[in-house]
């Protein structure tokens, strides 16, 4: 075990070049996934979580492109840019970057596996579950013939499919949603990757099944010592499964903390608002939903991107773009200028409105 993080993402920028303009879906996020940990990536729909995930695997489809940043995985450069050496404005791709075919043969599936959101859609309906599982194992583990089948059945048993040698020859539509999700986890695990990225894997499942799947993942993580990057919008899952959490808003990470710190002492108003909007057993009274919806990433608000929905917003917020910085003695980071009182005029500037939120609501219409 080395001390370097398994996955290191630095200043990643992924943009979509559409006719309506450039969508800055991921705008300079940085985070690390340590070996053996489960890192949460939380945010509303449209925050850029999925694009971040696609960027890590270099699967961003046209018109999207990774325009800047650096992603290193276990010593290999997945994405790397150098400052413009050829006089153009754009940074240029670095030489040491893995080629597309190296990405395919060395990283995807092999080192980083992906579990998808919708178990109903993520299995090919025309092939049996076993065939698909075998295909993935064959490609990524270099097994062949009978060994593949044996490994496939073994892994189906591990993820809790009853009678795996019979179910092996069943088609996806003969499985329930929870069972399919188990199969997807089996497909990811069967390749024995170092990192599994789970892109909202329990969203389509009911709560009981979700609980079972989370338990399963927890057990498997102990057995396999795999790292997880868990993408979700569900704070309940975060609390249950993650070690550390990154909160994303409109393409940026606005808070990073250990899971306990995040829940007991959130430092960013957005995180606070998120937590206020979900029922918690230790909190009486009415829920306070977060008003408005996330602006378009095509034309993000000036200054702090959250200011038009933020209950604590002041005038300074519209001018100053906050950086993610450490705000407590623990490893808790937040991007909000109310923690930067000495450098900005947050304290002195006037509140945007007592109901800063509703004003923004009118503006966005």
């Amino acid at each position: 075990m080395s001390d370097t993080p398994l996955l290191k993402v630095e200043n990643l920028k992924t943009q979509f070049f559409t006719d309506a303009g450039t969508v800055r879906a991921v705008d300079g996020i940085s985070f690390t996934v340590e070996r053996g940990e489960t890192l949460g990536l939380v945010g509303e729909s449209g925050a850029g979580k999925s694009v971040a995930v696609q960027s890590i695997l270099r699967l961003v489809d046209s018109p999207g492109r990774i325009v800047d940043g650096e992603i290193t995985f276990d010593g290999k450069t997945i994405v790397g840019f150098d400052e413009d050496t050829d006089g153009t404005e754009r940074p240029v791709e670095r030489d040491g970057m893995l080629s597309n075919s190296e990405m395919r043969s060395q990283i995807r599936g092999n080192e980083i596996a992906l579990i998808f959101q919708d178990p109903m859609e993520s299995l090919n309906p025309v092939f049996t579950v076993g065939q698909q599982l075998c295909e993935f194992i064959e490609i990524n583990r270099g097994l062949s013939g009978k060994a593949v089948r044996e490994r496939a059945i073994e892994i189906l048993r591990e993820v809790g499919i009853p009678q795996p040698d019979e179910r092996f020859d069943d088609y996806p539509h003969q499985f329930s949603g929870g069972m399919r999700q188990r199969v997807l986890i089996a497909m990811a695990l069967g390749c024995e990757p170092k990192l599994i990225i789970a892109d909202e894997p329990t969203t389509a499942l009911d709560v009981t099944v979700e609980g079972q799947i989370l338990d399963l993942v927890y057990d498997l993580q102990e057995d396999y010592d795999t790292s997880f990057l868990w993408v979700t919008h569900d704070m309940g899952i975060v609390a249950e499964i993650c070690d550390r959490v990154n909160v994303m808003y409109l393409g940026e990470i606005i808070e990073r903390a250990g899971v306990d710190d995040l829940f007991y002492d959130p430092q960013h108003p957005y995180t606070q608002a998120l937590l206020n909007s979900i029922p918690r057993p230790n909190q009486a009274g009415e829920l306070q939903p977060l008003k408005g919806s996330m602006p378009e990433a095509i034309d993000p608000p000036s200054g702090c991107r959250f200011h038009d929905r933020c209950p604590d917003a002041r005038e300074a917020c519209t001018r100053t773009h906050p950086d993610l910085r450490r705000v407590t003695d623990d490893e808790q980071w937040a991007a909000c200028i109310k923690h930067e009182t000495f450098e900005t005029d947050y304290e002195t500037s006037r509140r945007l409105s007592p109901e800063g939120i509703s004003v923004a609501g009118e503006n966005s219409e």
Partner: protein
Amino acid sequence: MSDSDDDSASTQTSQSGLADITTQLRGNSTSRWGLYIIAVVITVAIWAFIDGVLLGYHFAETYWYSPVTAEPGARSLLPPVGITNEFGTGVWAHPLGTDHRGRDILARLVYGTRIAIQIGIVATGLGAVVGTIVGAVSGYYGGWVDDLLQRLVETFYAIPFIVLMIAIMSTFGRNLWIAIVGVSVITTPVFARLIRSEVLSVREEEYIEAAKAAGVRDRNIIRRHVIPNSLAPVLVQATLQVGVNILIVAALSFLGFGAQPPTPSWGAMLAQSRTYMLPNPWFSFWPGLAILVTVIGFNLIGDGLRDAFDPRLDD
């Protein structure tokens, strides 16, 4: 009716893929007729191939009439139905009559089936395979690959097929295999277009994304994931296209570009009977009927397949 409905509903959950489709085809009375017709036609064609091509009309000449050469002294006979047989005897020996050279029309029809089916199925199959690959690659990659392949396809579309066929056959010779290749060339664009549109939606499916994320090669994604999931309309079109191609072949034979005499073929029979159309309409009637029935048979199956593949008609 309700019985068969219950049947198909219960088999749907227990069976999958082809088995389910065949069950549905048999359950539908019109497509069942299509199946019967095509089963008969194909059996006849296989027999014609074995005896005509492999054995040189051995059985036909020994036990029946040769479809190629007329017997000495044979006359042109009309079938007995509806019209008085002005030539007198030999009525039941030739139930469909004999042609202008005295050859038995039924025998010529039977042995002519081979050409129709051979070109119809082989050329359609060839065109479907090539078209599927072209269309799948085109739709999957998009971008300049798509543009290039689709412009190529459109170029073929733009040329009237009969003209193209005649050009091909005058250049390379009037030969059965050239005809097959020619028909498959003009069939390819149909399938390339059809599957491309299907692939455009299939490639956005999450299981394709999952396969990419697992490091599956593009060509394997196309082969194992994209094509099998886009194939339903191709199967339907292929069945319908067999009928169309049989017509094309008949048209070519009619124009003298298909199988060359004395090889029996339906189109050639039509062409030869043209001169005798008024005194002896039966000469033209029988081959026309054979073409009609066969094409209808394939169309019925095609329609049945389309219904079977259509999820909206599942109940």
